[in-house]
């Protein structure tokens, strides 16, 4: 695509994005759109760890919970406000990710999967049982609304623009990191850890870096989640959510930021579109995951890339068949 065409499409896309709240009239639907934005941040964060560095984490929802509870506790019990609460959420989740990451990321494949599963569960148990801090299953409510430059973000409409800013910033950050040598290094660690180390790239350092980034994104997403719903409880941060994030990554195409974004929006809105299926939705969802893995292992982006390649190939073929028929 030429440079002009690219800038034009970005511009149009941006205008479209900014106009969404104007024509999505149902506030329930707008709430879902906002949730997809938050999910985008969480999944793009997970992409550093699983998509690029190839490490599985089934505890991502737990990290998001840490962010949510940090912001919620600081703002309800200690009267912090949105920016400081969100900053704290990001910092603390990142710190915990580093602390958990160092010993855990030495483990490979299956061990890491089970360990992160266990960690996610331990976090859930803490959220549910540490009543003095988290109110246990009653959850934390009345999380105050954000105030930006004197405006209060009191409804989904306003929230949309707040989340768009966050999504833009964090996606941009992700694109920058991926394009830098750190992005290459993380992929190198995934592709061939031994060779990466022989080139001076420490596998542990980059795995922990990826994990910390995933923690940062999860923490911020958690805080945004808390402010969007103004109420959080342990049941929002379960293994099912971690699996959902993982599914979104695979559907979008491991390692692709754009793919993660598309899949995040799609799988957040799909349950609503298929609401008539009731309980059958979850069965369909599981089936979709397996079908995607088997028939579209590179995800959406893989299909798009192949489609483009196929079109290019077709363009180079002679228009008449060489042999009859």
């Amino acid at each position, binding site marked *: 695509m030429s440079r002009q065409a690219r800038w034009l499409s970005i511009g149009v896309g941006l205008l479209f994005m900014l106009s969404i709240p104007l024509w999505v009239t149902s506030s329930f639907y707008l709430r879902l759109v906002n949730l997809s934005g938050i999910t985008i941040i969480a999944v793009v964060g997970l992409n550093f760890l699983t998509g690029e560095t190839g490490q599985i984490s089934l505890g991502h929802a737990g990290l998001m919970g840490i962010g949510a509870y940090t912001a919620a506790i600081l703002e309800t019990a200690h009267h912090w406000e949105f920016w400081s609460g969100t900053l704290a959420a990001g910092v603390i989740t990142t710190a915990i990710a580093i602390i958990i990451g160092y010993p855990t990321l030495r483990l490979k494949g299956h061990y890491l999967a089970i360990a992160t599963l266990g960690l996610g569960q331990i976090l859930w148990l803490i959220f549910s049982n540490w009543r003095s801090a988290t109110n246990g299953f009653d959850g934390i409510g009345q999380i105050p609304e954000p105030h930006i430059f004197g405006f209060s973000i009191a409804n989904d409409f306003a929230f949309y623009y707040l989340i768009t800013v966050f999504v833009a910033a964090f996606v941009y950050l992700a694109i920058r990191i991926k394009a830098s040598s750190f992005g290459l290094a993380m992929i190198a660690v995934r592709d061939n850890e031994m060779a990466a180390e022989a080139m001076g790239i*420490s596998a542990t350092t980059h795995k922990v870096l990826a994990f910390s980034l995933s923690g940062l994104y999860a923490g911020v997403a958690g805080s945004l989640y808390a402010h969007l719903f103004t109420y959080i409880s342990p049941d929002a941060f379960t293994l099912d959510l971690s699996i959902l994030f993982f599914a979104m990554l695979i559907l979008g195409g491991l390692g692709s930021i754009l793919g993660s974004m598309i899949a995040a929006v799609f799988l957040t809105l799909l349950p609503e579109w298929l609401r008539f299926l009731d309980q059958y939705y979850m069965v369909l969802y599981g089936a979709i995951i397996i079908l995607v893995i088997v028939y579209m292992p590179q995800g959406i982006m893989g299909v798009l890339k192949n489609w483009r390649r196929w079109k290019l190939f077709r363009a180079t073929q002679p228009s008449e068949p060489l042999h009859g028929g």
Partner: protein
Amino acid sequence: MADSILVVERLGKRFGGIMALDEVSFQIPRGAVCALIGPNGAGKSTLINVVTGLYKPTSGQIAVEGRPLDGLGPVAIANLGVSRTFQNVRLFHSLTVLENVLVAKHRATPARFLGGILRSAGFRQREATIRAEAQEALQALDLWEIRGRLVGGLPFGQRHLVELARALVRRPKLLLLDEPSAGLIRPEIVRLMQCIRMLQNRGIAILLVEHNMELVMRISEQIVVLDFGKKIAEGPPEVIRADAKVIEAYLGRRHQRAGTR
């Protein structure tokens, strides 16, 4: 002694009941090409793996440029100026030829991390320098034309060359080549020899593990022979060629004929 880039002193490596390396000692002077030969299972790859930090020695000492390695890991040793290639070529299959070489120049510092995000002037200048070095390495090995291709689709001989470019771009002081000619056809082997000579001209010391005797005899200044983990001979090619122990252990009649060519 100060002139040696690599000093291996009474190196031993035991795996359970097996002594893969047993009291091996030798030195490589700066800028020299040294070949490590011996029958299969003699411990050649083990030695490379110990020198590059994949295994910890069970006894003995290794020093690079006078600095003892003392159980350092692969990353630290790589940062001392030691580069290597792998016998079963280990490239980063999701990356292109150029990216495989660029990533070898990566250093994980906070400054570089911030630089990558903010893209300051200093950062962009360093990027340009790195790209120039990568270009030079690729051009030297005739890989510049295919720099945008994913390494997965390349023919075997070219993949070896990409590995070499990747090790080379790090400007190593010591380069360890693990059976670089394995699986190459004759013209590729000729190219490999030219590459090694070119590297030598740049002052890079090379430790070459090889089975191809013709390559070894033509290119090395010094040969170390291992058998069952022990060093059984060391010296320049003419001496080794004629050494009875070596011939008996390994070379056999085939090489005696080749040696008189």
